């Protein structure tokens, strides 16, 4: 049986000014083919103006079991948000 082609993650910029967003993945032998497959699979209806493909193996993801230690410390730091601070109503442009 033929060797399995590696997996690539596909990111699309839907229009100028927006960032690329993950949409799915494709199998391809090399980067050029990954772009072609991504184009055929994910942009049949003008979904984008630019594509990124990244070898799936190159992605390091955070561990969901560590979501607490990673993200919870931000929860009690409300002073990072502007609404934490009281400013009298008559003070404008702040």
């Amino acid at each position, binding site marked *: *049986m033929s060797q399995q082609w590696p997996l690539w993650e596909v990111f699309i910029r839907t229009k100028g000014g927006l960032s690329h967003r993950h949409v799915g993945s*494709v199998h391809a*032998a090399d980067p050029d083919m990954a772009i072609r497959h991504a184009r055929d699979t994910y942009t049949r209806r003008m979904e984008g103006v630019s594509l990124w493909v990244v070898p*799936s*193996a190159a992605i390091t993801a955070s561990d969901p079991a560590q979501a607490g230690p990673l993200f919870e410390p931000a929860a009690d730091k409300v002073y990072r948000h502007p609404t934490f601070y009281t400013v009298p109503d008559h003070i404008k442009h702040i």
Partner: protein
Amino acid sequence: MYTTELQKQAGVTTAEPAELLAAFEARVAADEFIEPKDWMPDAYRRTLVRQMSQHAHSEVVGMLPEGNWITRAPSLRRKAVLLAKVQDEGGHALYLYSATETLGTSREEMIDALHSGRAKYSTIFNYPTLTWADIGAIGWLVDGAAIMNQVPLQRTSYGPYARAMVRICKEESFHQRQGYEIMMALAVGTPEQKRMAQDALNRWWWPSLMMFGPPDDNSPNSAQSMRWRIKRDTNDQLRQKFVDVTVPQAEAIGLSVPDPDLKWHEDTGHYTFGAIDWEEFYAVVRGEGPVARERMQARRKAWDDGAWVRDAATAHAEKRSRRQAA
């Protein structure tokens, strides 16, 4: 998506810790999405692999009955539309295969399961497409039934599956409308064309109702799938919904649904319909459908005939990376 990592973990979950299981059940019950790297019970993973790969296989096999009409479509417009629809089905298979791969199975394993006959696909594709009207009936009824099934799956509990279904549903509605348009055109055509449309409806009606699967009291996987929010509606609920919306569509173009027991009930706002021939359904599931063998032969031939292309692309990629390394 993070397939390789998951594959390493796949065999580890034999004894499932009660607290993980309880946390998982609570998350699902609260309508949270489960993502590839989250802990999940082995049976949940297996159920999803089975359902999602069957779904992907159905999209692949679904290209065959329609594909054979591309060269015989009655106009350039119809040909362009059918080509786009068949291409969509291929795309849908790819979304679903890659979503399934996030569960730790490989594309190769899934395709091998299909070609060796271990995996199932929708029984509907084991019926032949005899006339052009069948292409209309498939779009209208088969895609219509598929949409009925797929809309609730956009909220299925497994994130990658739900996201694939959002894309699929967005693309699917043109499939149904183009099918109905074909039927509409035939229904106002010559008497012969109208007969052709009626004949296609006669042959595709019951198989379409069977697409929703066995009745609730005989559907072994339903209860667990509902609890895990993999499924959101039961087979019979969806079937009823399909009948309720489709019968008026047939009547509107002067076609009649081939069911002498079909009856509208003003008080409930629903139709009741005749008994489904479940013997036929199970026979088709067992692979005894009229063109089941032909479908798998066509699939295997496409795969084998394409082997040299895959090998050449692999060799080219290897040569290129050797050159870059040098």
